[in-house]
């Protein structure tokens, strides 16, 4: 199955901006969306920074009946989906319900909603637990609520591969489209900013204890000390290129290639598998390394992990050969939303012919032989971009995005 599948709509909910236009403008200006956590008091915890969305008012975008039954992550995902549909020009009610599918990524589910229900249970008893908790916390609830709100009865699912999820779902969405579902809503939105989610994340030992938003999350920097988490993500509308052409849709780009691998056990002496994921994606796209114009890196923000990624990029594309960037330095790592937002950002880069910057990094590790786009965005002829993502536990994923003759234009 090699039918061309493309992205025709984007909905973005990010700490640096709600909506494509605001997010892209903020991204080009290098705005730092990382700040001290305000959703709860972080002072008792070793990690105190996050990328927060400060201007989202759910009641302004959603009917009141949805508010009591949705975690904030679902509210963000529903609104992002509304915006993605509007961006694509598709009115959900205009398509047969079985022709539309949904596959989203999730990492932490509705932690905030769940924490409140646990509080009710412990402090007031089982009768105080909300009936909505039967679904509001569950990883698949974004998929569920999106499909209900938009009347989508095609294939539905959720993938949970931590920060790689945003790419894995796009691979799955493409699979579904090729198997005969004309339109698939995909992407991911997470909201891991509550005490319960916070202590769960702390167990990864990968978050930075640094309190300075300008110096905390520094992928590929000698001072890298971990990452900053954030909330938000992106929803993408995926269609078969032939269908997009038929309705004269404006196409962002083609999902030309996808690859996923799993790292060997830490005790094994085998090589980490990120490089292999990139090679699989390139082969899938029938694209040579020399044809790739930029790489959107995963950017773990920890020395050893950054080194592995830099070496993977350098060994595939050549040292310092192509621009590499980590725009999530502006938002933090958004878990299932992270790679989805990277894909959206990469598609915007392809549309506007500019690589967005990596911010706050000032002192790149000398043994990371990559051409990191630091500080300022870089205009460049872009037709093919690779996006990388890695999830805690060993998940690796790579997607090749392409514009041009195969992209339905």
């Amino acid at each position, binding site marked *: 199955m090699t039918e061309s599948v493309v992205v025709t709509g984007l909905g973005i909910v990010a700490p640096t901006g709600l909506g494509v236009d605001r997010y892209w403008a903020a991204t080009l200006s290098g705005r730092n969306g990382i700040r001290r956590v305000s959703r709860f008091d972080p002072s008792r915890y070793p990690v105190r920074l996050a990328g927060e969305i400060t201007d989202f008012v759910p009641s302004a975008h959603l*009917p*009141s*009946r*949805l*508010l*009591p*039954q949705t975690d904030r992550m679902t509210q963000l995902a529903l609104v992002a989906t509304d915006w993605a549909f509007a961006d694509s020009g598709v009115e959900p009610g205009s398509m047969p319900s079985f022709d539309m599918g949904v596959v989203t990524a999730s990492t932490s589910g509705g932690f905030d909603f769940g924490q409140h229900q646990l509080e009710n249970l412990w402090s007031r008893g089982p*009768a*105080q637990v*909300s*009936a*909505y908790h*039967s*679904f509001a916390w569950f990883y698949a609830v974004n998929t569920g609520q999106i499909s209900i709100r938009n009347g989508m009865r095609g294939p539905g699912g959720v993938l949970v591969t931590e920060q790689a999820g945003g790419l894995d779902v796009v691979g799955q969405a493409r699979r579904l489209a090729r198997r005969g579902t004309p339109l698939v809503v995909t992407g991911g939105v997470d909201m891991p900013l509550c005490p319960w989610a916070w202590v769960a994340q702390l167990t990864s030992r990968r978050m930075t204890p640094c309190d300075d938003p300008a110096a905390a999350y520094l992928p590929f920097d000698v001072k890298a000390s971990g990452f900053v988490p954030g909330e938000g993500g992106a929803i993408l509308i995926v269609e078969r290129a032939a269908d997009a052409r038929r309705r004269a849709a404006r196409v962002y780009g083609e999902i030309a290639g996808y690859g996923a691998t799993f790292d060997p056990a830490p005790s094994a002496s085998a090589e980490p598998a990120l490089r292999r994921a990139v090679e699989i994606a390139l082969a899938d796209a029938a694209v040579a390394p020399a044809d790739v114009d930029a790489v959107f890196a995963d950017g773990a923000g920890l020395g050893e992990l950054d080194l592995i990624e830099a070496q993977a990029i350098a060994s595939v594309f050549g040292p310092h050969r192509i621009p590499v960037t980590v725009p999530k330095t502006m938002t933090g790592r958004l878990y299932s939303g992270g790679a989805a937002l990277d894909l959206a950002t990469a598609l915007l880069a392809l549309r506007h012919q500019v690589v967005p910057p990596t911010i706050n990094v000032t002192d790149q590790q000398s043994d990371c032989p990559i051409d990191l786009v630091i500080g300022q965005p870089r205009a460049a002829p872009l037709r093919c971009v690779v996006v990388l993502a890695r999830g805690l536990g060993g998940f690796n994923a790579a997607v090749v995005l392409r514009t041009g003759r195969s992209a339905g234009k």
Partner: protein
Amino acid sequence: MTPDELIAIFRASAGEPESGVLDGEAMDVSFGELGYDSIQLLEIAGGIERKLAIALPENIFAETRTLRELLLAIEAAAAAR
């Protein structure tokens, strides 16, 4: 419990109905017509029980179809306490 108090619990637990408006005239419209689904009704029942510290019969929504009928059933459950 007054109709307004019941309406307030509906609104707090499940928001405005999908079809129609939660006002005096909604008291005689069926829950189905208003667009409330079974989980929303479960949450509403929980809200009523918490507010009045009573237990409603498990099949309350099989026995009542409208807010007015529900109000009568609530009175009966409160009296039986």
